């Protein structure tokens, strides 16, 4: 095998792995999200029906949401779903688009690295020094998602870089009529 063939194969495997990880995280967060809806509704019902809400009820809901979001930051980089303004960018000539994007992805990668390193520090130093008032667990367990998120951001940023390096059209805007594109814009409201 030549060097370039090895590189291609490595990249192939990386992308396959990225697809797999993305799918796993999506499914996992879906499950957490479903639990969240059921849980908050249950709290309303138990409060009115049984006059009981556990002391940690609000806290666990907020923690679940934080976990979902931190886990999704990376996959959203991979699928290019974070909110972004492409109108001006699309007017830039092609090779520059690619360079700009690569510089930006490096920036995101560094941010991921910071979340990893300082997230570990935060989880250990602060998280093991205080407990959550409601659940009574070390906040470490809540903060743990920060470094995990940092890892995922770095991982998926590389995957994204590989994707646009292989196929520069990956950067072009998709057809607007596509329903998912509309959904993506939804938060612009």
């Amino acid at each position, binding site marked *: 095998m030549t060097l370039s063939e090895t590189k291609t194969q490595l990249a192939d495997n990386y992308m396959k792995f990225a697809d797999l990880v993305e799918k796993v995280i*999506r499914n996992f*967060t*879906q499950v957490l*999200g*479903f639990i*969240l*809806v059921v849980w*908050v*509704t249950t709290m*309303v019902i138990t409060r*009115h029906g049984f006059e009981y809400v556990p002391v940690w009820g*609000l806290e666990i*809901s*907020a*923690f679940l*949401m*934080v976990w*979902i*979001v931190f886990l*999704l*930051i990376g996959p*959203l*980089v991979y699928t290019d*779903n*974070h*909110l*972004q*303004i*492409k*109108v*001006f*960018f699309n007017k*830039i000539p092609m090779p520059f688009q690619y360079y700009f994007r690569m510089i*930006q992805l490096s*920036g*995101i990668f*560094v*941010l991921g690295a*910071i979340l990893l*390193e*300082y*997230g570990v*520090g*935060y989880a250990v*130093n*602060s998280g093991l020094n205080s407990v959550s008032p409601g659940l009574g667990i070390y906040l470490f367990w*809540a*903060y743990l998602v*920060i470094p995990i998120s940092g890892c995922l951001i770095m991982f998926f940023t590389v995957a994204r870089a590989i994707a646009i390096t292989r196929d520069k059209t990956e950067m072009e805007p998709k057809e*607007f*009529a596509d*329903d998912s594109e*509309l*959904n*993506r*814009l*939804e*938060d*612009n*409201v």
Partner: protein
Amino acid sequence: MSELLLLAALLIFLMSMIFLRLEIAFAIGITGVIWVLIAGEPLTVVASRSFSGMNSFTLLAIPFFILAGELMNKVGISDTLIKIANMSLGRMRGGLAQANIGSSMLFAGISGSAIADVAALGTVFVPRMSEEGFDRDFAAAVTAASSVIGPIIPPSNNLIVYGAVTGVSIGGLFAGAIIPGILLGVTLMVMVYIFSYWEEYPKYKPTTEEENYPKLVGEGVVAITMPVIIIYGIIGGFFTVTEAAAVACAYAILLGIFLQTLSISDLYSALYDSLDITAQIFTMIGFSLILAWMLARRNFPTIFGQFIQDLGVGQVGFLLLIATLLLFIGTWLSITATIIMLAPTLDQLATALGIHELQFGVIMVLALGYGLITPPLGVSLFAVSSVGDVKVWPVAKRVIPFYICFLIVLLLVILIPELTLYLPRSWGLA
């Protein structure tokens, strides 16, 4: 002084990164990191502040209301709302255009966003209206303009984000936004009536099949129950705003099961979309707290406050100034991102001048909302041009009269605090 220059430089960097399509969340985060590094503060704040920004029970209302809106679409509630609007408002001059606006107002009561509105209603109304003899650009313009109402009439994701980042009561904001929201709708209807008279647009003639009133009333009751549950549940003390949002989801799911219109895959994709959007919003909120922390640490709230005091423009002057600024920013930036970045500071400045926090919050969300229909980036314009198969600029031209009306509404809301404060006060929310 050098501190102010640094802030200006960071702001320019932030804006250029956003316009060069760096994900807005990361543009905010990276700018924050750079500031932290320049100021020599420990990078731990990057981790701790972004966690803190997302860790809020009130913010949970956002995924729930998005989910509820998506589910209601899948369950088929939107079709019913359209039918109700057609059968009632449709009989006026320019019937379908009026029904279009009416549907948006009804739709606003279940959905927190404007694009959902355009996507759901635009596909129905633009083709139907042009079939019945309306000018296609006009049909698209009405659809786009009426989408501005959706995020004002509660529930509203923008108001939730506003309440979450400023600590202002979300229930109070919801109550405060009702009259301005209805005002937008009514103004729009009056304008459309005038145009329809002028251009002799037709009334809507229901088919015999549609005139099945018992069935329509039944479906109507089911559809209207959802906003009623939300509003009455909050005002009547059954649950908080966040819980109301969760209950709305549960109601939609039960309805879907009962009407047999909701499949597991519908549920899956609705959940998928709502988590997706929520993650985008929360990421921005999380990273923006790094900037907010640096601002506070460098004592900027005091500096800004002093600056506004020195301007000596008074309450109305300040509101006009800020509204103009927001109309401009709303043209270029996502509403959510703008609220996240500016609301905490602006809210402090406004309350320091003695402006009621609810009035200011509604004004901010209202002014930013107009960006939806302002070219060149107005998202609703793009959305309607794609679902209605029309060009952006001709539609934008037809939107101008509506836009002027909206400006008048904004002016009224600025000049008459009672428009935003009457309902919150009479419901004990302010």
